[in-house]
């Protein structure tokens, strides 16, 4: 029974994660700790391994469609890891509770922006997909000022991620979509590619400390691979309005959770 639940929920996590450019940790960590009573460190470590597989499975399909902006992904990722390192150093100097409260407000504002955009453009997108590939958005076409803002935003995203343990997708998708004005599908695909790199760096520490159950990780990785592959394959058939609204819901959920835990 446990095995069936584990398999079903992680398939769902992979499915939702790949459609929205998230790792799925937001679903998996509570599942592992609450349902399966895994210690929190082991839950996070196992979830990180699953996130890598989720990212890889989605990225194969998104890369094939030309939806990943590699120049944006590599640049933003570099600044994100700088921020994450700085966040790790600064963790002792900042009150985590205050940061959690402030970031909850930022997430709610971002959710509002996403939902507003979804409703505003809903009419023009009825009938299906509007963006395939990179042809309608080019990273090189962005102004220097905007790029600098994005790099700064990535440093901030890395710091927040490191200070509060928030996954990359929740921050990166809005950053690429709202700040860099990339179409939502490119934002999601680029974020899906990036979160694997972030999770990989984190997971190395967990695996070497023994905070990963290899067998559980392998089972979860297999099921999340299926979910992510299916999700990324059918993603173009899902209306962008639904994706944006769904993402707003995830942001609101994360904000509330962070506020309560803060």
């Amino acid at each position, binding site marked *: 029974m446990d095995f069936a639940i584990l398999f079903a929920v992680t398939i769902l996590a992979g499915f939702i994660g790949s459609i929205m450019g998230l790792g799925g940790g937001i679903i998996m960590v509570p599942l592992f700790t609450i349902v399966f009573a895994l210690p929190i460190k082991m839950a996070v470590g196992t979830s990180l391994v699953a996130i890598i597989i989720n990212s890889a499975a989605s990225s194969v399909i998104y890369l094939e469609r030309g939806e990943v902006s590699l120049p944006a992904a590599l640049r933003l990722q570099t600044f994100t890891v700088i921020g994450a390192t700085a966040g790790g150093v600064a963790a002792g100097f900042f009150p985590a509770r205050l940061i959690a409260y402030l970031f909850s407000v930022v997430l709610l504002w971002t959710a509002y922006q996403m939902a507003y955009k979804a409703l505003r453009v809903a009419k023009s997108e009825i009938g299906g997909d509007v963006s395939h590939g990179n042809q309608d958005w080019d990273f090189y076409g962005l102004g220097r000022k905007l790029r600098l803002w994005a790099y700064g935003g990535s440093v901030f995203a890395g710091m927040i991620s490191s200070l509060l343990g928030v996954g990359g997708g929740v921050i990166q998708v809005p950053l690429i979509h709202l700040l860099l004005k990339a179409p939502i599908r490119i934002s999601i695909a680029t974020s899906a590619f990036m979160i694997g*790199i972030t999770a990989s760096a984190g997971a*190395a520490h967990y*695996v070497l400390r023994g905070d990963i159950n290899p067998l559980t*990780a*392998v089972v979860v990785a297999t099921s999340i691979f299926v979910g992510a592959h299916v999700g990324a394959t059918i993603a173009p058939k899902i209306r962008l309005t639904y994706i944006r609204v769904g993402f707003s819901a995830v942001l609101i959920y994360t904000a509330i959770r962070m506020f309560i835990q803060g």
Partner: protein
Amino acid sequence: MMERAIQEKLSRSFKFVIAIVIGIMILSVFSNYESVLYSRNYSGILSSKPPDNPILAPGAIAVLAIILLPLSSIAIILVLKYKNDKPTTYYAAALLVYSIINVILAINLVW
């Protein structure tokens, strides 16, 4: 090389790497999964008893392979190279170096 061509090649190479990792994962499921990498005591979902000795079992090898997966993608980007956009290649190199340092630090932390 143009970005579209890089994306297609990266996707193909990535598929190959994932196929190898999935292969290792399947092998690990059919092997003796009770012998895991670490001797730490924990209550896992499927593995109930801790091993007597730390053994590098296939399950653990699969996990390590999974962790190295994103690094391979960056390495592939480096091999393919952006002819018209050298900074992107430099960023990829920086990320690869960072990731390798991270893994080395993690190894040092434990062993």
